[in-house]
């Protein structure tokens, strides 16, 4: 519980600081928040196993690891959001940004360490509702509001359906505790339906096809750091929660959810890929990319084994660094070009900003699963775990899809290196924190795979 408590404390400190510090205080607030996040990270570095409230709260060591990872990811997002938050419209509500983000993080903490559907649901909603505010954060931007509206309504729709599913689970089993549910679940059609409803609810968070439709709109409309946050942190938490619950709760229905996941994975990856090819807007493009990545993450869930769990968490780590590197670059370029996020803006970027392009390239390669970057390893482990469980056909289809995904990642690389441009984005220098975050991402991309330590550390739990 200490992670949640310390996070709550941080939340309160920032709230107070936001109140006390004199405006404009966005810079100081950023420094403070980042420092506190580092503290939070250090405090929770050692994973713990804890069960509280009669099993309502059950934080396994793995969940603890996931929380640490999510914290680290959030820290990276904070580091990247400085420039955006110093804008005219946003500087006076920088505190809100941190507060809302940390609230969602807290929600995710609860989500991943829930021991009962009640806490899980509360955590989920705690993670969703502030997220809506974040998406609609740029309140003078038409798209931001539109994205927010779409997100909140579809989110409510999905949570209503999920809740309906949960009510059926409760109705048939008489309990909402994860520990008791497996004995009560028998795989009746009603329970199957309930599982699908529940799965759809998490599928919504994870943006799996066909529950993904909000994703591109929300990503495109949301401010860039928020898109980054949405794409990695919330997705990572949801994926872990999904796997956790499918493994722990729906144990008697393993075959059924295996089939369900297989269908979803193939759909997700394929549909996301064909949509991604057509995108010009980089943020929207990254939305589809993240949908397809979710499909790959789901392969680890599909595996449903210890190996799969490790692969999943590892995948999340790698995915966080790579994706945040991309969003970091997008954000940096966006700030320089008055909000341009279309691919043409990147034409010839290498000539003027070689380092930024380099980071972007490596991150994209990592996302595409090209060795020696971390993405290759994470993909491999995910495939291996799903293969081990016997879903080789699904793995095969996912692999074939990597060709398409490579294609669209290369399109951006092509824009930066190959496509000629008379007036590329002029050379610029980002803020120190942004640069640090990119360097951290870069180190992660390069070293996470080659140094097997991280994977083996995760594997221990």
């Amino acid at each position: 519980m200490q992670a949640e408590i310390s996070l709550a404390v941080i939340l309160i400190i920032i709230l107070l600081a936001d109140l006390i510090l004199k405006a404009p205080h966005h810079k100081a607030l950023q420094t403070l928040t980042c420092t506190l996040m580092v503290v939070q990270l250090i405090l929770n570095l050692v994973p713990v196993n804890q069960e509280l409230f009669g099993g309502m709260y059950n934080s396994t060591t793995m969940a603890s690891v996931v929380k640490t990872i999510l914290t680290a990811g959030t820290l990276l997002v904070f580091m990247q959001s400085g420039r955006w938050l110093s804008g005219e419209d946003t500087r006076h509500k920088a505190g809100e940004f941190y507060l809302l983000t940390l609230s969602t993080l807290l929600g995710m903490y609860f989500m991943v360490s829930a021991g009962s559907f009640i806490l899980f649901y509360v955590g989920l909603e705690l993670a969703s509702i502030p997220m809506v505010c974040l998406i609609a954060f740029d309140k003078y931007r038409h798209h931001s509001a539109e994205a927010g509206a779409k997100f909140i309504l579809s989110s409510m729709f999905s949570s209503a359906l999920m809740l309906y599913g949960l009510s059926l689970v409760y109705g048939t089993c008489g309990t909402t505790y994860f520990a008791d549910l497996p004995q009560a679940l028998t795989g009746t059609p009603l329970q199957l339906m309930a599982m699908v409803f529940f799965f759809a609810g998490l599928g919504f968070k994870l943006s799996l096809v066909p529950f993904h439709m909000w994703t591109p709109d929300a990503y495109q409309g949301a401010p860039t750091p928020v898109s980054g946050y949405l794409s990695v942190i919330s997705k990572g938490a949801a994926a872990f929660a999904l796997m956790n619950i499918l493994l722990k709760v729906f144990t008697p229905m393993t075959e059924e959810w295996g089939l369900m996941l297989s269908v979803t994975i193939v759909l997700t990856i394929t549909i996301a890929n064909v949509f991604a090819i057509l995108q010009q807007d980089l943020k929207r493009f990254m939305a589809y990319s993240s949908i397809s990545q979710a499909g790959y993450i789901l392969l680890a869930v599909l595996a449903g084994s210890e190996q799969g769990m490790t692969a999943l968490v590892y995948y999340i780590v790698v995915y966080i660094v790579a994706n945040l590197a991309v969003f970091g670059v997008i954000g940096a370029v966006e700030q320089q070009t008055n909000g341009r996020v279309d691919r043409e803006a990147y034409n010839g970027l290498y000539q003027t900003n070689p380092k930024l392009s380099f980071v972007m390239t490596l991150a994209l390669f990592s996302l595409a699963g090209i060795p020696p970057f971390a993405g290759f390893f994470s993909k491999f482990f995910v495939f291996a775990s799903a293969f081990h469980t016997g879903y080789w056909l699904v793995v095969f289809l996912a692999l074939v899809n990597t060709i398409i995904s490579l294609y669209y990642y290369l399109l951006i690389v092509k824009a930066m290196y190959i496509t000629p441009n008379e007036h590329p984005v002029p050379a610029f220098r980002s803020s120190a924190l942004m640069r640090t975050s990119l360097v951290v991402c870069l180190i992660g991309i390069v070293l996470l795979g080659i140094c097997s330590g991280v994977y083996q550390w995760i594997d221990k739990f």
Partner: protein
Amino acid sequence: MDYTILILALPLLSFLVLALAGMKMPHRVAGAIGTLSLGAVAVLSYLTAFSYFTAERTAEGTYPTLTPWNIDWLPFTQQLHIDMGIMLDPISVMMLIVISTVSLMVHIYSFGYMKGEKGFQRYYAFLSLFTFSMLGLVVATNIFQMYVFWELVGVSSYLLIGFYYTKPEAILASKKAFIVTRFADLGFLIGILIYGYYMQTFTFTPSEEQLMKAGMVLPWALGLMFVGGAGKSAMFPLHIWLPDAMEGPTPVSALIHAATMVVAGVYLVARMFPLFIGFAPSVLHWVAYIGAFTAFYAASVACAQSDIKRVLAFSTISQIGFMMVALGVCTSMNPHEGGLGYMAGMFHLFTHAMFKALLFLGAGCIIHAVHSNEMETMGGLHKYMPITHITFLIACLAIAGIPPFSGFFSKDEILTACFQFSPVIGWVMTIIAGMTAFYMFRLYYCIFWGKENKELHAAHVPHESPLNMTFPLMFLAAVTLIAGFIPFGHFVSANGESYDIHLDIQVAATSIVVALIAIGLATWMYAREKQPVAEMLARRYSGLHRAAYKRFYMDEVWMFVTKRIIFRCISTPLAWFDRHVIDQFMNFMAWCTQAFGVTVQPAQSGRIQTYTMWFLGGIILLTLVLLLF
């Protein structure tokens, strides 16, 4: 006989030196390096021959087969490996003499002929390369080594034919020569593969055991090898490259396309002779039939050609046909009982090499003098070029089979062998011999007598060649004069035992009479200023004459096969197929993906209701999937 390695090493060394450093050398030095090394080779060859043939015979009365050098060059399996070595037996030693002699003469001759040519050093480098390859071919210890050098001579021939690489005809001719022989070599290679697999050896003498076990595939192997030989030796219908190969410098034609390389096929058959006799006599007879037809075909074409080198080329084809026939008509290993042809063929190979080289070198002098290959620019040259004239005449007499010139003796043996095999072949060959005499003397008269092209000769007076060109002529003429008296059967015969050549009076008389008649005919038609008979015949049988002049349209047939069939009907469609079907299929898949994306894109309509409908639809779908499966 360890020094024999030098026979191979010296030309190779000279090639390397000239190829690497030749461009920096003056012409004289480059030529001298080539010629001197070849001189040394010739001396060594003679020495080898001398010591080989003077050594003791074995108990069976044959000369022993020696292998002074043999190294494992490329191993395949325990039994199968390509060795590189030197094997001395009567025919290889005989070939050593032929090659080194002719090559030396050509080297000397080229000093004069190629004087001042650009690429003089290159020329000598290639000559060295060729000589090396040819020597390597004849001393091969196994069939694969033979193939290796076989390919090398092919390439040297390619390089030398294309020596004047700025001349389009030369480029085409060299290409054609290489590709046609390469095509034939394919047969050779497959033959070797079959041979190697079933005999479990590449040597010429498979073990008895393997022969017993797999003798029945030998006809295939040998037949395919003969295809290779037919390609190199310009047997019909693979002969088409040889006339075109005359685009090369004339000394090259003398060396490669008259004396040495083109008889490689004959040599190959002779090499495999024991196996042919033992296991594939029918294939051997096919060799004879093909040889006979080629001899006839080439002789008839030669009668109508106007380019003197072409005439000589067809004459070469025809004469090689004779050699093939000689080998083909053999029915046993015993020269006394049907095995005479082997000795006769080898003998003819030897004498033919000398006088044909002489003819070509003579032709070279003539071309050198009038700067053209066409007969119409010549005529009456006997007054300008006495030495050339005399030596040329000697060669013509030799090839026509007039005693005491060498050709008579060898051809006579061939005819005898043919008559022993079957009178039909015998008579056919006799008639072809007559045709030979006719077209050679047609050539002779048209060059040295006949109608002189006075205008041209006035503008540019033909002159006798310098000594370095005439010396080889005289030398070869001397050899031609005396070679017939060499007791050839003493050295070379089918079973290796000594065989005394004795003239069959009947055959000899017939052939002399036929030859004389043919010469007379040629004299009547072509010796004078006016040639009414010839023109009348050409006019009356214009179709035939034209066909013969066009070589019975064989080139056109080949052009059709290569251009139309390979180029147009296979390659072009294939390339099209590759670009437009296979490649487009890959593009098509990409396009499909894209098109699919464009098709489904409207689903992402931007309306929340659509989104949630898909959401609910997805749930229903998944539930159905779970319930149904």
